[in-house]
């Protein structure tokens, strides 16, 4: 059910503005030759994803229901929901869930807002726009691990440039132990993630904006609409589907993105910056693959449920138009 809804919105990308010009011609000559072609076209993708993604994933999932600890594999009996129970009973679990929400929301909202503003400003041509774009887009090309290490170095308490600058400007008077105090550490990792993610939104929103036709703006101008009204009555609705899908994909990715945190704090201090996926790495390092798999399944189901609700919530807006 969830998947059908998702498919709706993915397809919605093309049908939001104009009538879907392709769908009515789709049901056509569907003979056995076409079917064979289709099969041949789909086969490579299906084989690759089947072998290298689905097989290991399904095979790995069964560990979630077994006592699968690499430290001692002599007894790998089935334990039913035991691993899930251990996870839920863990007093840290609440903190980790809370952190995950803070991490996703805290990273996402500024990414959307700044990304949107950036895209609006970049929409019109100006001198050196090409060069500007190349620089502004570059964080997207840096790996999560590297971003984590880079910010870990910049947030270093004694030799980090962040403390040095803040002290020069006079905002702080003594160095802040950024990665050693839970609240500061959470702030630091979120700043790093915002830095990384703004670009992605800027690109996607810019692309969407450029596809909104000038006629629509001109019509709005004739109606005497001001800038703000134009934004809310023309721009936002026109790109809402792209925006909706981009946000959904982004939420899924941020949720599943341990790289920056792992490189910067490793989930510390005192496990206070763990999100679900970094905690999963921690569990695998302890060797308990059973529990880690259980946590992985929880992630998959949470995201599926979330995606379903999310898509149900965004869909009506599309129909209103």
């Amino acid at each position, binding site marked *: 059910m969830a998947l059908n809804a998702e498919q709706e919105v993915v397809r919605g990308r093309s049908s939001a503005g104009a009538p879907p010009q392709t769908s009515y011609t789709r049901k056509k000559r569907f003979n056995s030759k076409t079917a064979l072609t289709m099969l041949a076209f789909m086969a490579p993708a299906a084989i690759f994803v089947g072998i290298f993604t689905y097989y290991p994933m399904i095979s790995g999932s069964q560990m979630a229901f077994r006592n699968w600890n690499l430290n001692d594999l002599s007894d790998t009996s089935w334990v039913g929901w035991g691993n899930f129970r251990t996870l839920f009973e863990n007093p840290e679990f609440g903190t980790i869930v809370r952190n995950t929400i803070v991490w996703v929301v805290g990273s996402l909202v500024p990414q959307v807002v700044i990304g949107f503003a950036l895209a609006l400003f970049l929409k019109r041509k100006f001198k050196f726009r090409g060069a500007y774009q190349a620089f502004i887009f570059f964080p997207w090309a840096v790996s999560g691990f590297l971003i984590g290490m880079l910010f870990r170095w910049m947030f270093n308490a004694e030799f980090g440039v962040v403390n040095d600058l803040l002290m020069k400007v006079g905002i702080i008077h*003594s160095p802040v132990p950024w990665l050693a105090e839970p609240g500061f550490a959470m702030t630091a990792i979120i700043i790093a993630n915002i830095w990384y993610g703004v670009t992605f939104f800027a690109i996607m929103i810019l692309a969407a904006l450029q596809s909104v036709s000038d006629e629509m703006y001109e019509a709005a101008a004739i109606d005497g609409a001001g800038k703000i009204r134009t934004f809310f009555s023309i721009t936002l609705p026109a790109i809402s589907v792209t925006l909706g899908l981009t946000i959904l994909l982004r939420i899924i990715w941020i949720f599943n993105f341990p790289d920056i945190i792992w490189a910067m704090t490793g989930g510390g201090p*005192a496990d206070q910056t763990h999100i679900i996926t970094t905690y999963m790495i921690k569990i695998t390092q302890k060797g308990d693959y059973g529990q880690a798999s259980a946590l992985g399944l929880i992630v998959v189901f949470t995201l599926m449920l979330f995606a379903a609700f999310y898509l149900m919530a965004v869909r009506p807006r599309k129909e209103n138009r």
Partner: protein
Amino acid sequence: MKKKLTAITALGVAAVLALSGCGGGSKDAADGKVTLKMVESLTNPTRTETLKTLLAGFEKENPNIKVDLISPPTDSADQKIQQMLQSGKGVDVVEARDITIGSFGANNWLYDMSADLKDWNGWADLTDNAVKYSKQGDKTYFIPYGFYGLSLFYRTDLVKDAGFSGPPASWTDLLEQSEKLNQPDANKFGYAFRGGTNANSNAVAIIEAYTADQVDVENAFLLKDGKTIFSAPEAQTAMDDYLELFKKGSPPSSVAWGYPEMVQGFSNGSTSFLLQDPEVIATIKESTSIKEDQWSVAPLLVGPTGKAIQPVGTAGWGIAQASTAKPEAIKLVKYLSQGEPATTFTKENSLVPILKSAAKDPFYSEGPWAAYVKMNEQPETYISAVQPRTVSWWTEWIAKSDGELQRVITGKMTTKDLLASWDKFWTEKMAG
């Protein structure tokens, strides 16, 4: 046109089909040469270089054997080694550590070398400790390549300038001196506190020093009466002093300091004291921030008992159970565990040596190493003891204890609760 279609789709499919055909190829070339795969765990660039030189020597002596050294990034090395051993392919010689041997042994991933080494002439040259640690239970899964042990690195110039006659000898001295040398505004600190990864090790060191009289030397986490060291009233005092040391004498950011941050904190001149393994001697010698005459090494800190417990840490070379080239692998392990190669390895990585002959080597009695000689000469004060690192739940312990210790230093848990929790953990685990 049809041909084109087939060609394109084949592009993807062919690659996949190719897989099924190419399994099982023998790595041992037809010319009779045997290739050994060797994995290291505590990787660092200098060490890898040393190892490569040693392996080249081995290959020269044994023209029929080739050794491929695999050097994964140390952060994920043990996990990778686990994967390799579990898959049973692609690894012959492996670096086993006391902390990983428990699980490797329990899973029957390592080969018991006892029979092959029964008549080995190298035994006679090994120190008593090396012989002792070559037996893990009744098996020989690895031969140690060296030993780790704690000693106190300190800044001679700063200690003197502050008016102290010498380095701290006890934990109380350390607190006093660190407090005096700690000047956060000038980015100068006393003690390079370990709050991050493996924070438990130094916390246990102070607890053991405070309970030294009662510690069971065969299992340094237990007292002679069979209770855990964490249950002793002295442990409470130890932890309170330790917390004090963090608050008054250490950099605030050290909550998150692991091994690299501590060593860097000392070698870049921001902290005055560092409790560490000898292997950092080489790193500090390379430092451009502090000069050779600005630092030295003192023995491990004693507790109110006047004694300290020296936890012996070790790692060594072992052989994968699934290796198909065991005789050659044995040759390599033997080669690395005696004579010149063993000495070179311990010297270059500044480890406590495994060979008796090192006692006569001036290298090990001068400069930073003098502290180790001193500790060796006073076994009653610096009691050598075995920590239960080879248990299969050791990694679980590290994860648990590190997290809880950080909670204590960030004020989210009391030292009393911490000790109760650790006591409960070990009491239950030891009871089986």
